[in-house]
C-alpha cells in the first residue's frame, strides 16, 4: 500500500456513494453540472481518494458533536460491493464467489473501508474469505501451468489474488526446475 503502488492508486479511483452534509457552491462538477452549487443532501458518487478525506474533515473540533456544525463535509454511504448480499455470499461459499466481477480491487477496498470505520465484523469475514480462497489458489498454482486453459476459478480472482497466484506459481515452478536439474 505504498504511495507509488499502482494497484493502490487504481483501487483509490473506485467510486463510492456519498451524501453532502452542506450546500457548497461551485462544486457542481462533482455531479456533472459545472458551475452550479451542490445541494445539501445531494447523493454523489465520489472516488475514494476524495471521499475518504471529505468524510473525515469539516466538523469543528471544539463543537458539540450533536450540533449542526460538527458534521464532516460528506457522509459515506454503504457501497454496493460491501452490501449484505455480498457478505452473505462470502459467508456461504468464498471459493465459488466471483470476486473479480464485484470489483477488481475488492480486498484493497475492503481493507480501506474496514480501516476507516473500524469494522471488526468485516475484518472477520475477510479473514475467513482469504483463508478459504488461498487454499484453492495454492492448489491451482502448485499444479496448473500458466499457459494452460484457465479454469473458471482463475477468472474470479481479484488483483491482489492474482499477484498471490503469480508469486506462488513462479515459486513452485522454479523449485521444480531446480530439483530436476540437480
Amino acid at each position, binding site marked *: 500500500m505504498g*504511495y*507509488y*503502488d*499502482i*494497484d493502490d*492508486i*487504481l483501487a*483509490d*479511483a473506485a467510486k463510492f456513494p456519498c451524501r453532502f452534509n*452542506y*450546500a*457548497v*457552491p*461551485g*462544486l457542481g*462538477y*462533482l455531479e456533472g453540472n459545472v458551475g452550479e452549487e451542490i445541494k445539501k443532501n445531494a447523493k454523489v458518487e465520489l*472516488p475514494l*481518494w*476524495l471521499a475518504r*478525506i*471529505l468524510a473525515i*474533515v*469539516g466538523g469543528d473540533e471544539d463543537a458539540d458533536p450533536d450540533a449542526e*456544525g460538527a458534521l464532516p*463535509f460528506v457522509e459515506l454511504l454503504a457501497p454496493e460491493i460491501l452490501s449484505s448480499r455480498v457478505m452473505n455470499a462470502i459467508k456461504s461459499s468464498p471459493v465459488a464467489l466471483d470476486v473479480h466481477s464485484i470489483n477488481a480491487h475488492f480486498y484493497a477496498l475492503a481493507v480501506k473501508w474496514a480501516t476507516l470505520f473500524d469494522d471488526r465484523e468485516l475484518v472477520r469475514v475477510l479473514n475467513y474469505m482469504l483463508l478459504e480462497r488461498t487454499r484453492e489458489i495454492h492448489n491451482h498454482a502448485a499444479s496448473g501451468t500458466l499457459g494452460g486453459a484457465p479454469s473458471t476459478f482463475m477468472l474470479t480472482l481479484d488483483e491482489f489474488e492474482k499477484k498471490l497466484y*503469480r508469486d506462488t506459481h513462479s515459486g513452485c515452478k522454479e523449485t521444480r526446475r531446480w530439483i530436476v536439474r540437480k
Partner: protein
Amino acid sequence: MYGDLGSKLVLEAKRAQQLSQSSGSDQLPLYQDDLVRNILREIAHLKKNAEILKSQQELENFDNKVAKCQYFVTLLCMERNKRCLLAYQKLRSDALDAAAWNRNGLDTASSLSAAKDGSSNLSHHEQEYLKDYVQLITDMKSGDYTDIDLSGSLTPPSDVFIDVRVLKDAGEIQTEYGVFNLIKDSQFFVRQADVERLIQQGYLQKL
C-alpha cells in the same frame, strides 16, 4: 471530472508493468507525452482555481466552512494528479534502473546507445536520467569495489568450466582473459568467469 486523466495514466502504467512481467524483457512502451501534458494543464487549471478562491476569501471575508470545502476539493484533486504522475514516472525509472544494471556497463562499458534499443521511447529527461544513472553505476564500480563485478550475473556459479555455443557471429573478440574467435555454431570449453559477459550480451549460449 478532475483526476480521470490521472487514472488513465496509471492504467497505462499498469499495462506496462504487466507487459514486462509476462515477457520478462525490460522494454519500455512509449512515453505518454500528451497525457502527461494534459494532466499538467489540469493541475495548472486547479492551481488557478485555488488562487481565485483564496483571493475571494480575502475580499469578501468568506472564511467559512463552504469555502474551506471548495479549497479542500481543489487541493485533493491536485494531490491525486501528483500521485498519478509520480507513480507513472517511478515505474518507468525503476525499469530504467533495472536496464542500466542488467545491460549496460558490461565488459568495457559498451556504448549506451547500442545497448538500449528503446531509446526513442524515452522522454528527453529520462534519457538524461539514464545516462547519469549509468555514470553513477560506473563510478561505484570504479570506486572501492573494483575487484568485484557488481553488475555481473546474480546466479551463483556452479561449475568452473562450461560448454558454450556461439549464437551470433562476432569475429574475433578480445576479452580481458584472452582472444576468442567467435564463429557461429562453434563450441568452446572455457572458464565460466571469462565468458559471463558474452553470455549476458547474447553472443554465447550456455550448454
